[in-house]
């Protein structure tokens, strides 16, 4: 019966909790606390605690209603903010997860490496990668070709340069400057007529570029099809 009375009082407080009349609220509170004083209710500590909690919750509701309400909340902004926070949190979790996974993988690899495979190519990236095109090599033909090349390479077309020393670029520059010094002007084509091989021609051309860069000579080609005219730089 006493419990019923307390519940009735709480109900009354709930019904009137939106009221701003202080007298009404004070009356309700007095009634509730009077019913709490009941002896049999005090003996039932669980019920007593629940009623106190109910009362406290109702006052909390009331207190919240009295707070000023912000009517102009931009919920889209709020949602975006929550989304950003969630994303950041998800990324943090993802990152933390991968850190843990990386360490777990390392432990697993360490365990696996206790059994050492008999194969020879450790840490080779292309170990299992098969070439897309496979060339069949005839070992006998390959050997014959090698013997022929190394025994008479000078007579085989395309191999005559094998033992030829490459021309020295400094020498080529010196030679070029000597020739240019003796003549008022000359052309690159004339210079090329004095060389014996394509390697020397390349060296001469590089020498020409270097000499122009250093300002020793001037070189001019008015047209792609015309000769390169070279003369000493007197400036």
């Amino acid at each position, binding site marked *: 019966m006493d419990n019923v009375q307390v519940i009735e009082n709480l109900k009354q407080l709930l019904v009137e909790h939106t009221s701003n009349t202080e007298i009404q609220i004070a009356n309700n509170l007095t009634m509730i606390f009077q019913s709490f004083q009941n002896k049999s209710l005090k003996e039932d500590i669980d019920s007593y605690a629940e009623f106190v909690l109910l009362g406290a919750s109702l006052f909390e509701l009331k207190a919240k209603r009295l707070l000023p309400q912000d009517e102009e909340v931009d919920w889209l902004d709020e949602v975006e903010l929550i989304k950003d926070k969630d994303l950041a949190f998800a*990324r943090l979790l993802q990152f933390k997860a991968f850190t843990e996974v*990386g360490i777990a993988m390392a432990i697993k690899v*360490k365990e*696996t*490496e206790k*059994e050492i*495979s*008999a194969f020879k190519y450790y840490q080779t*990236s292309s170990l299992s990668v098969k070439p897309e095109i496979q060339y069949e090599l005839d070992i006998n033909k390959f050997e014959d070709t090698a013997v022929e090349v190394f025994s008479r390479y000078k007579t085989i077309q395309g191999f005559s340069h094998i033992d030829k020393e490459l021309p020295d670029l400094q020498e080529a520059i010196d030679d070029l400057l000597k020739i240019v010094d003796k003549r008022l002007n000359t052309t690159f084509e004339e210079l090329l007529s004095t060389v014996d091989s394509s390697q020397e021609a390349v060296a001469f051309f590089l020498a020409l570029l270097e000499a122009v860069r250093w300002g020793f000579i001037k070189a001019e080609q008015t047209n792609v099809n015309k000769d390169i005219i070279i003369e000493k730089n007197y400036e």
Partner: protein
Amino acid sequence: MNNKKVISAILLVSDGPVEHEYFQNLLEINQEELISVFSEINNDLITTEIGFYIKHDSIKSDIVTNSEISDLLGDVKPPAILRGLSTPALETLAIIAYEQPVTKLKISEIRGVESESSIKTLESRGLIEKKGELDVPGNPILYATTELFLQKLDITSISNLPMIGEYFNNSEEE
């Protein structure tokens, strides 16, 4: 012909794991018979207390040393593939393993930092490789794990990687 002799000799001289299909074609036996030969050889090796055995899965087999003598192999043991690797490099490896094929940008996004050096290190160790380009402007390079990575994790395919959650279940149990 004694299949045990042939299989053990081939595994000894091969440049890596041998696929079951190769033995099946060579010796005209089925997979069940082949696995049975592996077991026979392994029993012989255990009986004679030899320090290696034939390790096999559903696709391939190889000769490997017994794990219990690993510490006694000393200098003849090849260097560990993860030696000196930092935690960031391991993170990067985990990301590539689970997100592959993946671009450098995506890896950096997940980690929140530049991952160039980690990728280079992992590539030089043969654990990851370039696997094509993404068909978007700039054509960023896609990275994926290698066959060596699978071997080192003792799995046959990326699909055999444990679910990420499994790592955490185990760690909780420990």
